[in-house]
């Protein structure tokens, strides 16, 4: 019966879409689990780093590293961490919205700013709205390595050491749980003082070779590890957001299919009724 062919075609197409979104949902679920594991795996390094940096802040070294000394804000560098791919709900747009609000606030305070972007979406965002982008890293993939981020981080740190910027911030998403991600702007440099009360006496390390060299490297690595953490956390967020977005897309497709099926059935019944009526009418006429 040639009833509602268009509807049948439409149903089939929605079913295909649903298959795709469901597959993407499952892929995102498994990738999210792996990303969370990586997040956990990176924790010990960051913890240890934090301890060492806290010790340094308390050790009474005669050398004060510029990263530990705050200065008045005239120009700010922001590292923006985004995803490479879309289809992850409002993850990136929420982050950018927060960033724009922050930018407006800075403009009000007459603070200048420049950006480094990680991920393709942030690069595209600044291409669209303009803004000074001094460094860019894209295609970080699902398993980023710390060394992929060196360049971007170093641009900012160099600018800070040269004095052309007075603070470095990082904008990324925090993984609260698989349903919630929170966009967040954090200050990287100057480092916020850490409090560790376990070592409250006058002491200092033996530095080899020189306090300055050791601290330079250590603090650089520390900032790198913080950025790395933000990036892998952002990837976990990306996968979680994609999982949720794809789940709701699959659900919506299911709803759509149901509605279309109902319309199709009605049309079919109407056609049958009409045909019967015609036959009966024809028989009555004879």
């Amino acid at each position, binding site marked *: 019966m040639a009833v509602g062919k268009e509807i049948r075609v439409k149903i089939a197409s929605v079913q295909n879409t649903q298959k795709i979104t469901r597959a993407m949902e499952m892929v995102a679920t498994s990738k999210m689990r792996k990303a969370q594991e990586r997040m956990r795996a990176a924790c010990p*390094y960051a913890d240890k780093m934090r301890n060492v940096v806290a010790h340094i802040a308390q050790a009474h070294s005669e050398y004060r590293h510029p990263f530990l000394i705050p200065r008045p804000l005239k120009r700010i560098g922001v590292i923006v961490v985004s995803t490479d791919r879309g289809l992850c709900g409002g993850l990136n747009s929420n982050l950018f919205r927060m960033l724009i609000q922050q930018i407006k606030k800075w403009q009000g305070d007459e603070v200048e700013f420049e950006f480094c972007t990680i991920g393709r979406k942030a690069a595209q965002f600044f291409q669209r709205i303009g803004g000074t982008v001094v*460094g860019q890293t894209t295609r970080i993939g699902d398993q980023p390595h710390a060394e992929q981020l060196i*360049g971007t981080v170093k641009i900012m740190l160099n600018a800070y050491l040269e004095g052309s910027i007075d603070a470095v911030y990082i904008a990324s998403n925090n993984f609260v749980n698989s349903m919630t991600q929170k966009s967040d702007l954090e200050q990287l440099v100057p480092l916020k003082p850490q409090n560790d009360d376990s070592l409250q006496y006058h002491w200092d390390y033996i530095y080899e070779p020189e306090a300055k060299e050791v601290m330079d490297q250590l603090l650089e690595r520390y900032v790198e590890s913080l950025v790395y953490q933000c990036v892998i956390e952002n990837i976990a967020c990306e996968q979680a957001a994609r999982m949720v977005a794809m789940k709701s897309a699959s659900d919506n497709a299911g709803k759509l299919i149901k509605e279309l099926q109902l319309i199709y059935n009605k049309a079919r019944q109407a056609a049958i009724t009409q045909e019967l009526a015609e036959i009966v009418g024809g028989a009555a006429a004879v």
Partner: protein
Amino acid sequence: MSTIHVDIVSAEREIFSGEAAMVFAPAILGEVGIAPGHAAMLTRMGPGEVRVQLPSGEQQAFYVSGGMLEVLPKVVTVLSDTAVRAHDLDEAAVLKAKQQAEESLKDRSGKLDLSRAQAELAELAAQLQTIQRLRRRGG
């Protein structure tokens, strides 16, 4: 026998954590051996082997490509780099990130290029199809 706690970590994962009788590490000024109760020390490491002597006498070795070594009287922390790092390599990474940013800024008219590339691609695909069809007819 007194022991010292050793943590070896890299940015991407934890490599070793446990008690040791003695630790040897490739500090930048030469290999150091650390026994329990060593004075607090902070140093850079070059590429080499971190050897951990377990209380049982067994020895475990881990390769590190460089990093930092923190020694406190009861704790040794090895913060290993994940890759070989050198000043000029880092600078190269900086240049790369900068270049990418500049290129994408230059490409602000990039959308136009993209659509042109797509058009070209479609044309080429059509050509290819025609050639294949001709070949099939010939064969």
